């Protein structure tokens, strides 16, 4: 690790913690200190991290609602169009647009549309799949999916200073502070 590198050649600095509480604490303090471009990594979902990072409410529920509406309209529309315009046929004397009998299919396509929106929407908003990410350059990060907790302050943050930020992170007594290659 040479000190002639400029901060911009780093993705960021990553502190490794042993417990979830330490990570949440460090994240809260980092945000209070003014850091914004950072992310926390954990092997389990931690609700408190969303608060510590002050994450906005996700748009996902709106997308799912829209998916459900589109699915329902598509299902009902297909049935109505096929039975009244494409091929009207007298079935047991019922009207061509016998809508109560179209409800089961409408319900199923509503569910399908909503579920597809939840699935595709979540991965799209998370920008996954993503084959490469700088955090994987830190060998210790392997344990982020088992039992270690990481806080990464990114070099694009206006307050980021290679030495200063490292000192800041070390104050939380992490297991280690690593530089993350871009």
């Amino acid at each position, binding site marked *: 690790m040479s000190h002639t590198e400029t901060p911009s050649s780093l993705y960021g600095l990553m502190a490794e913690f042993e417990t979830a509480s330490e990570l949440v604490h460090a994240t809260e303090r980092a945000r209070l200190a003014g850091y914004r471009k950072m992310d926390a990594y*954990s092997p389990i979902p931690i609700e408190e991290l969303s608060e510590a990072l002050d*994450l906005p409410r996700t748009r996902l529920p709106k997308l799912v609602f829209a998916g459900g509406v589109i699915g329902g309209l598509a299902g009902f529309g297909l049935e109505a169009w096929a039975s009244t315009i494409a091929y009207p046929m007298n079935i047991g004397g019922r009207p061509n647009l016998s809508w109560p009998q179209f409800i089961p299919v409408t319900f199923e396509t509503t569910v399908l549309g909503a579920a597809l929106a939840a699935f595709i929407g979540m991965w799209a908003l998370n920008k996954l799949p993503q084959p490469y990410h700088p955090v994987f350059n830190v060998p210790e990060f392997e344990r982020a999916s088992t039992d270690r907790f990481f806080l990464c302050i990114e070099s694009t943050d206006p307050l980021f200073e290679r030495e200063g930020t490292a000192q800041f992170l070390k104050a939380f007594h992490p297991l280690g502070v690593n530089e993350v290659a871009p």
Partner: protein
Amino acid sequence: MADTRHEVQHSGGEAALAALRARTPAVIAPGHTFESVTESVSHIVLSKRTPIGWFFGFAIAFALLMLLNVTIAKLLFTGIGIWGNNVPVGWAFDIINFVWWIGIGHAGTLISAILLLFRQQWRTSINRFAEAMTLFAVACAAMFPLLHTGRPWLAIYWLFPYPNTMGLWPQFRSPLIWDVFAVSTYGTVSALFWFTGLVPDMATLRDRTKSRAGKVIFGMLSLGWRGSARHWHRYEMAYLLLAGISTPLVLSVHSVVSFDFAVSVLPGWHATIFPPYFVAGAIYSGFAMVMTLAIPLRKFYQLDGFITMRHIHNMTKVMLVTGMIVAYGYANEAFFAWYAGNVYEKAMMVNRMTGYYAPFYWGLIAINALMIQLFWFRSVRDNIPLLFVLSLLVNVGMWLERFIIIVTSLHHDFLPSSWDVYTPTRWDFAMFAGTIGLFLSLFFLFVRFLPALAMFEMRTITPEAKLNMEHHG
């Protein structure tokens, strides 16, 4: 429950705590950490050594799967005449087995979705393999409607909303097309839910595997998951939404399956109790199958610290409740056959109870109404070998129920001159056994190559997951 235990601990009553522990076993054995949970589950997949018992079980399952292949080949070359169904029993093993398999799948969705919404912590250790069971059961179920067409490559005209060369569409007023929508939506949503749950675990396997191929395969399946708080935030929302969406879906699927019968005017089928009665029966048989799979799984892979007696007890209780609803359904059918005063209904019920297939009827009553009363006793709920046998019997009972509902209503219809007896052929049995082979083969492969328990969810129920913010104050 964990909270109750903590309260007891704080109030200082060690004796009370011990008593409570004895009454309600924990959802996870004490002493587990993130690492121990992850290691116990992931080593099944990452270990180079496959247990010899696995090969033994897989060999049997695979032999049955080959039987399915032979049966399908015979069916495609000869036609569905190789089956025993014929006028007046035009619908037999194909629909019996379809309903049986679809019903089994329902427990997986109940565990993964409905119990999540109800915050039932015990679902965490059984949801992954129960969801896998759902997918495999739906795959087995789909075989029957597809193959009963005789020419499955043309089934797209008959099953899917696609007009034929004359411009004619499938009949949207028919429950059979509702069924296509319900089952295909159910299969799709179950697969999405299952895959979503697998992604963080795939990341764990990617990080823990030593082999290059493993890194590539698990790396791709993990979609580059890195456990970012921003990702978890949306992930948890998506998981909750999928659970919320799946809940009405799973109730609708077996309701729609029951419409296949209830919308007709045949005595024995035309009953308003069918949707709730079918849904309860589905969950009942599904939990029996989860139990049938969980008991060997926890024994052979030493997972009894994760699938504890708490799970076994709870599953038994769910079976007891849903089984009693099913038993109420039988009583209700018999009552209305008498109370409605319709001669055809009455004749159908008398024929069910005393006719050619009466032994099957009394068999299903013996299992689904009487035998399940054993589940009231704690000594039975604690007896694992007995529970294994009982869970198999429940599935026999539920299969008999579908047989009775379908065949007794058809073989004695309104016109005595057309009455006949239905006997399945060897190909009927071969196909049924073949789908059991397909189911078990998929399940054996799943247990060997994918994490059978949801590692990331299991980590959240260990004591390590509890935040302790005071000491930073």
